[in-house]
């Protein structure tokens, strides 16, 4: 696992060197006012969330307090409490941290698997590609939600890490397909043929020639994916297969809204989390769209 997570490193380094990848993206991002505002908002949110969660004691937050069940927002509980008398604000902060971490981890893991698989399948083609594509086809056929539910039921120790792993096991296929398609296209370009005629070994071609050229598309895809992955556990939580309650997450908070009373009368329990998800997703989406434009422009540039 560790190796795979570490894989994308060359992308970063290679992309660093090229002014036309990250720096153009950055320029485009800064020029797009909406994206810039989004970036700032997102950074502030993340800063607060990760910063504050260092000082918050998770044990203390998920401690039930029957004297304070469903108390509305007050000076003591900024966003009130839930049905266990637990502080919603604290849960929001830690939940946002967990949800974002989960989203990020899923994005990175699926990205790494997708990258390796996609590159190998796309570059070598032939039977390797065939086998990999069959596997991917198969996974795509699997009824995702259903299998996840089954998985969740059989995993004994169910926590953030297992959740990430289960999700990742299903979600890498899309990226693998995308990267394979791009690799296939890239492989046809003459610079790859050139490298071959120059005697460069395949693995070097894949890592140092093709990969850097996919970096922008990968970054864009991962960014847009990140948005989706942040909310991913909320639906499962609603069905009762999300994270255990002792691990606060935005999904848990949002899913409290399934209690009609909470939905209608106790807005402070679910609304802040919903809004936070919305805002984060919007921000990331806007950033992603800006990056996408940047990536396109670069391609036009040649």
């Amino acid at each position, binding site marked *: 696992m560790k190796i795979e997570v570490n894989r994308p490193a060359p992308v970063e380094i290679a992309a660093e060197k090229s002014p036309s990848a990250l720096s153009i993206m950055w320029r485009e991002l800064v020029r797009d006012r909406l994206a810039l505002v989004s970036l700032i908002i997102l950074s502030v949110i993340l800063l607060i969330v990760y910063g504050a969660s260092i000082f918050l004691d998770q044990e203390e937050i998920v401690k039930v307090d029957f004297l304070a069940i469903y108390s509305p927002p007050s000076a003591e509980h900024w966003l009130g409490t839930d049905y266990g008398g637990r502080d919603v604000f604290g849960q929001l902060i830690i939940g946002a941290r967990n949800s974002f971490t989960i989203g990020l981890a899923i994005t990175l893991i699926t990205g790494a698997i997708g990258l390796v698989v996609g590159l190998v399948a796309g570059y070598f083609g032939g039977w390797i590609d065939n086998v990999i594509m069959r596997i991917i086809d198969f996974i795509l056929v699997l*009824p995702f939600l259903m299998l996840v539910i*089954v998985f969740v039921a059989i995993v004994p120790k169910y926590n953030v890490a297992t959740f990430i792993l289960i999700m990742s096991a299903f979600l890498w296929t899309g990226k693998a397909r995308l990267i394979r398609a791009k690799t296939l296209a890239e492989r046809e370009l003459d610079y790859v043929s050139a490298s071959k005629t120059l005697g460069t070994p395949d693995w070097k071609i894949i890592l140092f020639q093709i990969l850097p050229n996919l970096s922008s598309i990968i970054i864009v895809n991962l960014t847009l994916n990140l948005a989706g992955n942040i909310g991913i556990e909320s639906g499962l939580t609603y069905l009762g297969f999300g994270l255990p309650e002792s691990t606060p997450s935005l999904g848990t908070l949002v899913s409290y809204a399934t209690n009609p009373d909470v939905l209608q009368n106790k807005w402070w329990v679910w609304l802040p989390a919903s809004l936070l*998800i919305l805002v984060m997703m919007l921000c990331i989406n806007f950033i992603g769209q800006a990056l996408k434009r940047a990536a396109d422009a670069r391609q036009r540039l040649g």
Partner: protein
Amino acid sequence: MLKFILRRILIMIPQLFLLSVLIFLLAKAMPGDALTGQLAANPKMDPQTLEEMREKLGLNDPVHIQYIRWVKNMLQGDLGLSYTHQQPVTDLLAGRVGNTVLLSAAILVLTYLIAIPLGIVSGRWTDTWADKLIVGYSYIGYATPLFIFALIMLFVFGFHLGWFPTGGSVDIQVEEGTLAYYLSKLNHLMLPALSGALINTVGIIQYLRSEIIDTKVKDFVKTARAKGVPERQIYWRHILRNSFLPIAAFLGYEITGLIGGSVFLESIYSYPGLGQLFLQSIMQRDYSVVTALVMISGVATLVGTLLSDIILSAVDPRIRIE
């Protein structure tokens, strides 16, 4: 064409086989079985009888024997017996599948009914306020969890405004086969279908929009303009038809998504369909139902992708499947 479909079906067989093994193993790996905890509600039960029942249901056989038996039966069209419902799974599903298909079809139709005009407006008049509105909607829709949205819809339109019924698939008091019966079905369908569609549609809107924007600048559109084709016709005959292609290809994957979405919608709107049945069966470890449902949705997905390919080849002359 026929050959192509046949080949695709042949390819499906090993996939389904794998799927069946996987789902069977997973089902067996889940803690508990259909009889676990039954007794919490039935304290008079005696353990020996319990064992006897397990034996009778074949739950004590080795997994591979169970699997082979299951596959054998399945190939003969027998999906086994639902323990909780005391009914053959085929009968059970037959009673529910109609509702889910109806709901999914309604969602699909609504989704496209919403997506196509909005996508066109937003793709054709980019950067106008209408476009910005639509794009804004699509972003928000993208970020809103289906179940929250459905709940809000339920409370607003079902309860506060009282426009739609809030549960079930049909009113019991209407005579089956009459117009009132179908109207009642439609009435019960509207709210869940609309909730699903409004969320479902945003992806297609975004896709259609960017597709139109891309097509707008293609050379053949220039050719058409150079022919003196009026703007309306340019859109209608040239840009839209080409932009719809990838949307058509989406259809198959839409079906997969609908299966997942139905779990939420059916449970929120108490709409008795397969999604709800799945959840219930998982909880109750009604394996025969769980496995049957997973297999069915696997087949549905495969058929969906097949359908996509067929549709695509029907509308795109460049793709010929022989």
